[in-house]
């Protein structure tokens, strides 16, 4: 098996083979989750800390459940970014967790690049659970896993990512992962949330400001959460956003029949996505949540488990 990562910081350094290794392992883990007693002893004695500097329900629960299903010791920590100079710094906290015997630290942080700082000064495996607008590799892997389970090969598949691309770590990590598997990635959103330079930043990625054009022939659509707090100076109003960028049934009909709909959650129903589409037959939103646990189990297993022994 191809695997030589000590940390999972983003997917930009993952080859196609490595992504496939994760997906294969995740399939096996998904089977574990369907057992009457979903628990295996694989990571017994390993210590996994989840360190969250941002509120999160699903990512955090998903990671902790993944680690517990593999029988690891799990400690969850909710931390706050200290604004005081003398406050405990990220590195202080990381060093403390290391001293407590951490084998892996799952880190969610509001600042881009924070996991890289942690990884540079820490022996434990760092798993990025989302850093600012930069990366959310496990979300991308579970999106890809969900698509693969339904569609098989993603080669040539047109995947539209629609929303606030500028601030989206989900979009950035998905770009790397989807490209590695040969998918065609089209980004869509209003121009203030989707600078044209995205096409230069990621070779082969297309930028399309018009959602209806973007959806032509798409095999899958990832709708992103609109975080109004962050974007209020970048879009004129939520109403305008809904009018032109909401994923609804009529727009979805421009995509390929049966095109799959994903959303990283939590969903603002009626904003970025019409409830009818979010709960409709093409939606993978609930499946994504279940698959998230399997994918995170796979990563923890690959980082801490048998792969090295």
């Amino acid at each position, binding site marked *: 098996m191809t695997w030589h990562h000590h940390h999972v910081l983003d997917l930009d350094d993952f080859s196609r083979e490595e992504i496939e290794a994760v997906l294969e392992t995740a399939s096996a883990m998904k089977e574990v989750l369907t057992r009457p007693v979903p628990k295996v002893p694989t990571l017994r004695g390993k210590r996994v800390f989840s360190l969250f500097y941002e509120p999160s329900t699903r990512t955090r629960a998903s990671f902790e459940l993944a680690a517990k299903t593999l029988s690891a010791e799990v400690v969850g920590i909710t931390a706050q970014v200290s604004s005081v100079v003398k406050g405990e710094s990220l*590195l202080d906290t990381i060093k403390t967790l290391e001293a407590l015997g951490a084998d892996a630290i799952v880190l969610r942080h509001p*600042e*881009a690049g924070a996991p*890289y700082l942690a990884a540079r000064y820490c022996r434990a495996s760092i798993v990025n659970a989302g850093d600012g607008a930069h990366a959310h590799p496990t979300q991308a892997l579970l999106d890809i896993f969900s698509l693969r389970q339904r569609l098989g090969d993603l080669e040539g598949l047109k995947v539209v990512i629609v929303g606030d691309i500028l601030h989206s770590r989900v979009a950035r990590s998905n770009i790397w992962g989807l490209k590695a598997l040969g998918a065609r990635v089209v980004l869509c959103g209003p121009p203030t949330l989707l600078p044209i330079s995205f096409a230069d*930043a990621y070779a082969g990625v297309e930028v399309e400001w018009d959602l209806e054009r973007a959806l032509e022939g798409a095999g899958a659509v990832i709708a992103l959460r609109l975080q109004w707090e962050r974007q209020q100076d970048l879009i004129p109003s939520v109403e305008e956003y809904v009018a032109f960028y909401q994923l609804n049934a009529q727009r979805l009909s421009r995509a390929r029949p049966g095109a799959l709909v994903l959303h990283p959650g939590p969903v603002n129903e009626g904003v970025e996505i019409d409830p009818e589409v979010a709960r409709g037959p093409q939606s993978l939103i609930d499946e994504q949540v279940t698959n998230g646990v399997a994918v995170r189990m796979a990563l923890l297993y690959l980082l801490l488990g048998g792969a090295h022994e």
Partner: protein
Amino acid sequence: MDPGQGLDGVRDILVGKGRVLWIGHGPPPQEPDKVLQGRGLVVSPGFVDLHCHLREPGQEEKETMASGTLAACRGGFTTVCAMPNTRPPVDSPPLVEFLKDKASREGLVRVLPVGALTRGRAGKELVEMEAMARAGAVAFSDDGHPTGSRIMRQALEFSRYLGLPVMDHCEDPELAREGQVNEGVVSLRLGLRGMPSQAEEAAVARDVAVAGLTGGHVHIHHVSSQGSLEHIRRGKEKGVKVTCEATPHHLTLTEDSLLAPIPYDTNLKVNPPLRSERERKALAEALREGLIDAVATDHAPHSLVDKLVEFSRAGPGMSNLETALGSLMALVHRGELDLLTLVARLTIGPARILGKELGSLKVGWPADVVIFDPDREWTVDPQALASRGKNTPLAGEKLKGKVMATLVGGKAAYLDPSLKLEVPESRKAKI
């Protein structure tokens, strides 16, 4: 090598009483007590730095007068202009006096105080420029913060009268929006807020216009973009008193270093941010041409805790005094710049902006001299820097070009162990 008087050749220099007494060939008009052999090395006027942060008073954990000026002489700088963003800021005559006093007691090189432009650097009320000038401020700057149009106009009216430059950190705040890195491919990839070079260009255009309006002398700090250079060129062509500096890092590094080998290396965080290779090349060309008048280090030492944090929380700036020559020599070694021009931009270029008798070894001028080996290789070890700021992105890098000796007012402030002041043979015989 003394571009200030068009000198490039083998000479002997006699110094005494702190000044240059004679430059010529063969035996000097009076016998020296001691001789420093510079054979095979470049001897030039000591470098003049228009822009460095010595951090005193108030931030002694980052740098002190003693450590900062030791770093300066190791880097070949015999004059440094100390920026006023200290705690408290140097915004009144007594603080200028304090700094001069501190420098005379603890400084190893000439320290020229730059006064803040506004009280408390708050951008609202102009400082007492004339009183501060009389106390010894050589220029005015709110460096670190951009200057508003109203203040800039008032300051440049005084600049015309006082004959001193007003220096500006050019940044349109609404375009810059607290960007962390250059806006473009790299900011998008890293997910960091970008600051477009146009934020600088808009402010430069405004400054050139206001300098034209008032007849004052505006000096643009750390110019980083081709668009800014075009505004400066147009101003200079029209006879506007505008000068500018560029830093060693904007001349030698690019934003691509932020992606690899160390992603988000906070030692690469500077303001203005590192730009693209296209902008870097334009800066190197403008330096060669003379559109950029001076190299200034923007030496910005930080303590470890200021940099061992998340990128957006890290303090901006690099510890530059000791690596400046070595980095800049890369431009010479790869043919982007000739050595004489580089020396000019480190000596007479900045000295002219200050309007002082510095930066050239004319007879009667201060005997501030640097001796360097343009081909000597050395490896940057942050722990070995004299500066308290170990924040250099060049750790482990091999630089080619090293300062061997620095004389301030004729006295050796720094000597490489391989060089010695020797009593000449003739003199020994007499003893």
